[in-house]
């Protein structure tokens, strides 16, 4: 006769022992006594409770956790593209581009095949749409930033000065489509608010 293994004894405690092993337990006094001993032990263990902690101690726990969370929160930086330090000059750049495109679009059509003038072609394309085409604007913005003098851009507040973490040109150009859409929405709100 094989007595219950340790796993089977735990199953018996859980009430999940079934089949032949459960039948063995029913007929084996040794296993029943062992199980009864373990059950009595568990009863003894559970008779020892933990008193409610002092209210002041729990209040201290909450206060300390709250302070740690607030410290974490204050250290956390917003998403780079939402930082005002970057968003404001980036927005200014797009506003300038938008104004430039609108002005040029209102004039006579530019020759779309002007030598060496891909930007002019982009701008001319916008003549046919009442609103700025977002994709064309982004392409134009990227081209302008890529080909412009870094010093000039920096002085204009468009490009981050050397040493400033998170260069704005990269921040603007590397935005995901969703981020670009959100930035465009913010800029449109800004333009609407200023009569643009």
């Amino acid at each position, binding site marked *: 006769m094989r007595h219950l293994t340790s796993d089977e004894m735990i199953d*018996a405690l859980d*009430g999940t022992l079934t089949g032949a092993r459960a039948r063995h337990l029913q007929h084996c006094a040794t296993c029943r006594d062992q199980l*009864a001993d373990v059950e009595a032990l568990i009863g003894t263990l*559970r008779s020892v409770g933990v008193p409610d*902690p002092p209210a002041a101690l729990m209040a*201290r726990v*909450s206060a300390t956790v709250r302070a740690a969370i607030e410290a974490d929160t204050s250290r956390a930086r917003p998403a780079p593209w939402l930082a005002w330090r970057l968003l404001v000059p980036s927005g200014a750049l797009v506003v300038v581009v938008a104004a430039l495109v609108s002005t040029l679009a209102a004039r006579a059509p530019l020759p779309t095949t002007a030598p060496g003038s891909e930007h002019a072609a982009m701008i001319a394309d916008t003549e046919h749409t009442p609103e700025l085409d977002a994709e064309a604007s982004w392409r134009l913005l990227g081209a302008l930033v890529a080909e412009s003098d870094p010093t000039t851009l920096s002085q204009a507040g468009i490009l981050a000065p050397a040493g400033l973490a998170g260069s704005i040109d990269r921040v603007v150009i590397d935005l995901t489509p969703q981020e670009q859409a959100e930035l465009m929405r913010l800029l449109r709100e800004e333009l609407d608010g200023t009569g643009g």
Partner: protein
Amino acid sequence: MDHISAARWTGAAARRGTVEGVESERDDRALVAAARAGDADAFAEIVARHRRVVYQVCYRFVNDPDAAADLVQETFVRAWRGLDRFRGGSALSTWLFRIAINVCLNRRAAEQPPHDVLEAQQLEDASAESPDRRLIRAERARRVRRAIAALPDRQRATVILRVYHGLSHREIAATLGSSVGATKANLFHALTKLRKMLGSEP
């Protein structure tokens, strides 16, 4: 006999408290979602709701109120920082137990000498008992806690989570990074040791 056994564990599950209820779980999920969005007040509510039961886990590990409170604090700070890793596959309380046990194991705070503050508080609380009865109960509690404290860490964690908080073997295995079979073996060996240490203690 199965009825008796099942009732014991069922009782343990019930002791996990109302935080395990369906209504509370729904609330917990909403609180977690808000906290993930940066709502510190929502997380404060989570702390207020679960700090007592997390304290019980930690207290059983270290037998000291102040040390347990420190561990509870660390547990919740870790939970805040790891909220994105809570997938909702288990109860929030179970997830917090896992963090608490790991905090306890990492700190190895249980190696500190146990205090007897619990006995003093129990004596004050049990005013209806006779003095003799209170002394007997306090002495039994002291022996039980010292026996549990003498268990190897993983066996102690298994006993605390299974006997006192009713976690399933699968949940305990996930907490300790082991298998269900190893968890059952841990529990059996722990109970065998405790039975020897406590003798025929009724």
